[in-house]
């Protein structure tokens, strides 16, 4: 039972000395300040690697980029001091293009099913679940898949590399495109239905055109991710010291180029790896920024 009776006057006298002043001698106040400092410090610590990476990219990579030949020359062999990553740049572009050709139409049509025709069906939830599983797939497993389905039968090729990248792009495209389609206002669809359109016509003529900017954003994010991926290419497209002539040949890529030249004992060749990294990061960041700009402009037009 209570030892303080209900009607006992409050222990606080009316004119008690009240100390409102901010004071660090109060443990609570000091502790508060300490934790704020620590979390701010954590943020600074987390940004140090970013600054360091960017610094290294510029300080070690920029010098070599002033020699235009690095964009057109073939990779150095032995103790070569020259050379470049021309074929790697070509390989990356070709494989990302292959991956996009495979995954973009596929992904958008799947998203159309999820957002328009399937919606709450069991099929749709199973497919969404599969897409989410693909999102968390380790990138090297995409390479193993491409290896099992293609390389074991037709040998290493840029096409196999493109398939590996496509597997990684697919979930990004499906999920962002579905999101984009769902954002199309209902009154637009209703207007089209009111004119006697079939569901397909509504989708192709009204919903998809309206959603295009946001879908493009999703595609670009997928492309940015694919362009930087290394693991799925290591044993599918592998590497090559020559230009790519046929799709079914092995090919170099910027990412694998960086991997190959990261640990070589020759200063000039490591610099080339940094230069390739700078190009790759610039490529990836540019795509990311463009994607964000497109979304922002699309929203400004609404």
């Amino acid at each position: 039972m209570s030892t303080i009776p209900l009607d006992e006057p409050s222990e606080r006298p009316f004119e008690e000395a009240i100390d409102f002043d901010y004071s660090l001698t109060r443990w609570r106040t000091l502790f508060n300040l300490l934790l704020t400092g620590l979390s701010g410090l954590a943020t600074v610590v987390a940004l140090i690697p970013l600054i360091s990476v960017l610094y290294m990219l510029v300080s070690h990579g920029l010098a070599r980029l002033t020699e235009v030949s690095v964009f057109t020359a073939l990779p150095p062999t032995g103790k070569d001091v020259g050379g470049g990553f021309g074929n790697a740049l070509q390989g990356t572009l070709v494989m990302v293009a292959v991956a996009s050709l495979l995954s973009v139409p596929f992904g958008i049509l799947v998203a159309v099913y999820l957002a328009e025709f399937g919606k709450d069906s069991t099929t749709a939830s199973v497919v969404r679940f599969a897409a989410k599983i693909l999102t968390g797939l380790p990138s090297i497993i995409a390479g193993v898949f491409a290896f099992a389905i293609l390389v074991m039968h037709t040998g290493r090729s840029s096409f196999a590399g493109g398939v590996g990248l496509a597997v990684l792009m697919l979930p990004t495209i499906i999920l962002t495109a579905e999101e984009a389609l769902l954002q199309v206002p209902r009154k637009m669809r209703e207007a089209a239905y009111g004119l006697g359109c079939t569901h397909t016509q509504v989708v192709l003529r009204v919903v998809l055109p309206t959603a295009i900017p946001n879908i493009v954003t999703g595609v670009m994010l997928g492309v940015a991710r694919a362009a930087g991926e290394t693991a799925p290419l290591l044993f599918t497209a592998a590497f090559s010291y020559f230009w790519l002539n046929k799709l079914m040949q092995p090919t170099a890529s910027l990412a694998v180029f960086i991997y190959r030249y990261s640990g070589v004992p020759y200063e000039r060749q490591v610099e080339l790896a940094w230069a390739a990294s700078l190009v790759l990061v610039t490529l990836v960041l540019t795509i990311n920024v463009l994607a964000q700009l497109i979304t922002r402009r699309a929203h400004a037009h609404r």
Partner: protein
Amino acid sequence: MSPALTTDDIIINAKIHKLFYGNFFAVRDTHLAIHHNKITAFIGPSGCGKSSVLRCLNRMNDLVRNFRVEGSVFFRSKDIYAPRVDPVAVRRHIGMVFQQPNPFAMSIFDNVAFGLRLHGMTRDLADRVELALRRAALWDEVKNKLKQSGLALSGGQQQRLCIARAIAPEPAVLLMDEPCSALDPIATGKIEELMKDLKSRYTIVIVTHNLQQASRVADMTGFLYVDTKQGGRTGYLVEYDRTEAIFQDPRDPLTRQYIAGAFG
């Protein structure tokens, strides 16, 4: 002023000249004195700044970025907006109950004990929790389930739990920001009874959009109105007096119009 109200028992003396949120000029020229052990109500149309004024009284507005106030709010002899004042220390003496019941996701007991533990009042913790729950008229309903989550209670019970939580550390003043707006009439009635019981011990300031509620519970009433003449939407205190005076014989035509509109 009524002769019963002397300047001796003024517990809060607020002089808010200008109150801004960023560039938004929210309240002007609101001067009022809150009397000890009385219930003071702020009424007025929505957007008139009554909640903003209430939140000035324990510096809750400090949590809003770009908030700025010109003026002073004296709690007894201390200006709580003086430069070196720690808002956290102010709120320990001037507690608050909010519009939406906001019990924490913990047991009923821990909800009430939260403030006590914060301020190191852990001697006789169980007794103090019981006392607060009794004062909030909730004890009989929850005494057998103190370990249950506060979120399992009904809306009215949740709000009384929040009142118990606010009064447990024995604040001098209790600010209530439309405490019944989310509740049904029966729960509202219980809270109003509770306020009358609590005023012998705490000074209560309440914001309400419900004029009947103000007339039922309040000793003093302040009417705020929103001034749209200068283009903005700046609220200000029109009239502040004993509740009977405001409701039966208001001096300002604006007040008369508002009261008549609401009752007529």
